[in-house]
């Protein structure tokens, strides 16, 4: 194997030597090769991520027909609209509540899975991760059907307990509850997997030492598990915060923002304003409001990831 490689290398270099030394040096130089290897990546990011991001900034300063520069006109227009402030509020409620419950459920279930014998863990883990595997647009349809007002499986079941029909998607409070519930259902398995991986990396000796010192289960979690998992909890939470904050599929399919725009998030409202009402500048403007929160979360994630890299 090695002989072949050597021969090939010699042949290539002898061919190149004939073509001239300077060209060979340039082509063979490490940085040149590296540049060509990363070129497609750089082009992709520059043309389809960075350029649209800045284009969005430019779009946000145009009027609806996109013929005139209006400066910050779209922004001041948004600030005056009540719907906008409702979207801001709902986005924050949605993201924070959903992430907290995802993290809690993930943490609790991870402990239960960690408790049971190793062989069975695989099976349970496989079952509990299913919500994360199904495309969210598809599973949200199942939820939509479960929430159905007239033939709803939930209301049918609840009627046996004497609980009246609940307007799952028809009333503001319940609609907000439902979109958060579906998001928690979809996202909790991700936390579960991350926390389970983190739990397995905590050395058993630490728990034994804590047990000898007379720590109860709560103290073990508070003084051993949480400090050991701190970094992974931070990264997972921040990451999920970004994804949840920018969520589109679930709200779009479940409520389309209704009733009376009370469940709109930035993404779904931007879609309605920018694409459905074809006011592209205003839509771009709405989605730009996600940037500050995403940026803050991204900075913290980057810090934690780098810290992790340095520790290893």
């Amino acid at each position, binding site marked *: 194997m090695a002989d072949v*490689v*050597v021969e*090939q*290398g*010699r042949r290539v270099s002898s061919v190149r030597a004939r073509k001239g030394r300077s060209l060979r040096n340039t082509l063979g130089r*490490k940085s040149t090769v*590296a*540049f060509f*290897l*990363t070129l*497609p990546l750089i082009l*992709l*990011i520059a043309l389809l*991520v960075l350029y*649209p*991001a800045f*284009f*969005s900034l430019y*779009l946000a300063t145009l009027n609806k027909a996109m013929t005139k520069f209006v400066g910050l006109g779209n922004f001041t227009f948004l600030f005056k609209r009540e719907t906008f402030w409702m979207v801001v509020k709902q986005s924050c409620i949605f993201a924070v509540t959903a992430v907290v419950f995802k993290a809690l459920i993930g943490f609790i279930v991870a402990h239960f*899975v960690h*408790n049971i014998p190793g062989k069975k863990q*695989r099976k*349970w*883990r496989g*079952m*509990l*991760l*299913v919500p994360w595997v*199904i*495309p*969210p*647009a*598809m*599973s949200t*349809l*199942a939820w939509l*059907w479960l929430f*159905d007002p007239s*033939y709803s*499986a939930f209301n*049918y079941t609840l009627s046996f307990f004497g609980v009246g029909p609940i307007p799952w998607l028809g009333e503001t409070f319940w609609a907000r509850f439902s979109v958060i519930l579906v998001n928690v259902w979809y996202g*909790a*398995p991700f936390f579960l*997997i*991350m926390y389970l991986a983190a739990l397995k990396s905590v050395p058993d000796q630490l728990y034994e030492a804590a047990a000898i010192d007379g720590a109860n289960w709560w103290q073990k979690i508070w003084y051993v598990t949480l400090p050991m998992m701190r970094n992974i909890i931070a990264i997972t939470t921040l*990451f999920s915060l970004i994804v949840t904050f*920018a969520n*589109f*599929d679930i709200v779009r399919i479940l409520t389309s923002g209704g009733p009376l725009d009370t469940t709109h998030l*930035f*993404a779904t409202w*931007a879609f309605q304003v*920018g*694409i459905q009402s074809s006011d*592209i500048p205003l839509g*771009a403007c709405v989605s730009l409001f*996600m940037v500050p929160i*995403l940026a803050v*979360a991204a900075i913290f994630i980057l810090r934690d*990831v780098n810290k992790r890299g340095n520790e290893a």
Partner: protein
Amino acid sequence: MSTLAIDKAGPTRKLGSMSRDRAWALRWSYFFLVLFAIFFLTPPLYMVITSLKSSAEISAATNPWWVFHPTLSNYVELLSSNQFLRFFWNSSIISIVVVIVTMLISIPAAFALARMKFWGSATLATGVFLTYLIPDSLLFIPLFKMLAVIQDFTGITLLNRWYVLAFIYPTLTVPFCTWIMIGYFASIPKELDEAAIIDGASWLQTLFRIFIPVALPGLIAATIFAFTVSWAQFLYPLVFTTSIDQLVLPVGITTTLIKGDVFNWGQIMTGALLGAAPPLIIYAFLMDYYIAGLTAGATKG
């Protein structure tokens, strides 16, 4: 012999109580796991239940959790409808092309970023990670406008063409795949590729003969990720395509099976189940790779 027995007798009593505690902890764990499993598995199971019902049974006021007259008519209808097969076809081709494009871009880039330190390589790696954090809901409006402008300028139809999606999706898959491939490549011992270079291998030969075979598990994880992301993508196709023959599966099911206010739930659930099938099948067979890819994003790097 007797001392040994006495020695053992002491700890066993303690162990007995401890193991009883453990047994109870185990029982409680199972109890709660069953509860959570019910919560997590209700929607997919309900999909299966509904997909086996006829429209008459769905609108009848019977127990929704049980199938009294199972029928496969929903499956037969959908799988023989050209429209649905078209959605399936569009989704499959797009996902396969996206996987190939993603691998072609991210493997060489990850190789260069992991092994060849060059000017700006650390910044670029950080940039790749940051790009991964940019959500689709931030970029769909400018991308839509960009496609419209290019279309007007060159006369090439870009909007409402399903294959254009195959060039947009890599923005969602490439950053993450590059990121986890950097992690996998960086974990390969330097001695391996140094030995190859000393033997006269070129950079490309080291990539193909050493890095790709050794990092194959990471490669599979990245492939699964790219496939599932492009299969599940909902926002971009919803914005960029409108004609029925240009839709992909998630958008096709949500827009065409809901006719006005009439919900044909049997078919919608069947469609959703068939749409969820490819990722679920991949997951069933390659669960470990799937989980490796999932955890690699935050733990490697």
